[in-house]
């Protein structure tokens, strides 16, 4: 790293005896361009063709506004719930030893491995008015499936591993000396956790929150079965893209996609900023 400012001035690549740089980087860039960059650029070109006024007209359509509102609000609630329970789950997995802990630890990744459509129909089977859980709630007039609450349930499922897996490794790194010092200085356990441990975990919790939130906004498969998909009520933005496509309304689909992409990049930027801040403040972050 100290070699970066050599006498020869600016150079793209540091010299190395290892071969294959041209081949591997060339293949990487070609593949990346063909699969990711050109298709994404196509979206940009289509949006540019619409012009500002065209985009604005579609973006302010009440149904689009409402779909975006449903997507963002349900994702926010689900990510908040995951922030609370995800931290508790991570804590229990890191700090306590009890029978079945390994199995529990493995099953946290289920939402990564289970196809979203399967999760969607399973959750619907549970929370529909005649479902396993729904039937006990229906007599009290509580409906979960086919309402925005159903969307939140699906998004909690999708987002949980993002929260747990982001917080867990950081929790494992916390040194017990700091806690012991706090205890020696007279802090009770609650004070130690709330004043010493949680502030140190804040960047990880924020990152996990942003990841879960970002993933939830774009989620489609698990949501559409349980949501009921009632326009203006429980219709999410990704579904509206699909509906517009089925109507051959490419302009409509493109505009909604553009808004969601801009949001995704903002989340990505936020995560990078959190991690840069965390490296400065706490000395960890990747």
């Amino acid at each position, binding site marked *: 790293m100290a070699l970066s400012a050599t006498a020869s001035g600016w150079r793209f690549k540091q010299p*190395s*005896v*290892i071969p294959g*740089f041209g081949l591997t*980087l060339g293949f990487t860039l070609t593949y990346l361009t063909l*699969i990711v960059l050109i298709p994404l650029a196509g*979206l940009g070109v289509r949006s540019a063709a619409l012009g500002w006024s065209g985009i604005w007209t579609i973006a302010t359509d009440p149904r689009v506004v409402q779909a975006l509102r449903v997507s963002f609000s349900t994702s926010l609630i689900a990510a908040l719930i995951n922030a609370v329970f995800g931290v508790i789950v991570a804590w229990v997995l890191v700090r306590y030893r009890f029978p079945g802990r390994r199995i*529990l630890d493995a099953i946290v990744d289920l939402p990564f491995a289970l196809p979203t*459509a399967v999760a969607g129909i399973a959750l619907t089977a549970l929370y529909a008015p005649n479902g396993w859980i729904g039937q006990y709630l229906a007599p009290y007039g509580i409906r979960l499936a086919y309402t925005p609450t159903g969307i939140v349930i699906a998004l909690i499922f999708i987002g949980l591993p993002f929260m747990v897996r982001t917080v867990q490794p950081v929790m494992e790194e916390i040194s017990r000396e700091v806690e012991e010092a706090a205890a020696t200085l007279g802090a009770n356990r609650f004070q130690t956790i709330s004043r010493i441990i949680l502030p140190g975990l804040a960047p990880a919790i924020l990152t996990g929150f942003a990841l879960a939130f970002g993933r939830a906004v774009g989620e489609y498969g698990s949501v559409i079965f349980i949501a009921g998909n009632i326009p203006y009520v429980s219709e999410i933005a990704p579904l509206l893209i699909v509906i517009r496509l089925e109507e051959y309304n490419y302009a409509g689909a493109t505009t909604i*996609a553009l808004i969601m992409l801009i949001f995704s990049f903002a989340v990505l930027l936020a995560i990078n900023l959190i991690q840069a801040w965390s490296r400065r403040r706490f000395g960890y972050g990747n």
Partner: protein
Amino acid sequence: MATDITPAAADRRRGWSDPVAERPIARAILIGIALSFLALVLVIPLVAVFTEALRNGLGAALAALREPDALAAIKLTLLVAAIAVPLNLVFGVAAAWAIAKFEFKGKAFLITLIDLPFSVSPVIAGLIYILLFGAGSVLGPYLQSYGVQILFAVPGIVLATIFVTFPFVARELIPLMQDQGTGEEEAAISLGANGWQTFWRVTLPNIKWGLLYGVLLCNARAMGEFGAVSVISGRLRGQTNTMPLHVEILYNEYNFSAAFAVASLLALLALVTLVLKALLELRYSRDSVGH
């Protein structure tokens, strides 16, 4: 990695309370909350898939899987994964080699670009290929004039699957190979090995578990992808239906037990993935202890 032979454990044996542990009651409550939450959110839905699949008996479930459309969907899912996973595997190894073994300008930006597909909604992943190859695009009509059909056909499904599983192998290998540094490769080269020999005999043995791990996750996602594939497939029954799409069609036809039968096959795949993943992680930690 001492597990329980800490001074705290010794104190407990002497009957002293650990100053940096919660009271037993708080501990029990926290474990209770975590267990109930995981049971409600993860375990019960998983159990529901298998129970609903077997509602009309094992025979009915197996019959739903032997039906021609279901068999076609299973075949297509395997075919798509068999194309998408190896391509992303080669890409992942090449990208990790370039990024981890060399220092060059713009590396951080390249890593961000590789991660990009993870932050794009699957529906948008399908949409961008429709914009690229659909009516009104430059490419679509041109390819069609040569009889090449991308959308609503297998190539489109493969492309969308490659997009959504793009970063899996690369993002697993890059940090692993960065940690391992370049010393062993440099030693091999200076002893006269060529590039391929160095890769096959030195690098690959070092990264094999991480590579398998990435391939495993990539494959699970490739076989289970729904949103991107749903947008691009046109959902022609028996032709462009993958297993997740077949689940949706059966479900929307109120053929619930058949839908859950196909879903349970996918859930089984997820369980196998989780077990293999846990085993690989065990292997991983043993390797890193050995280093």
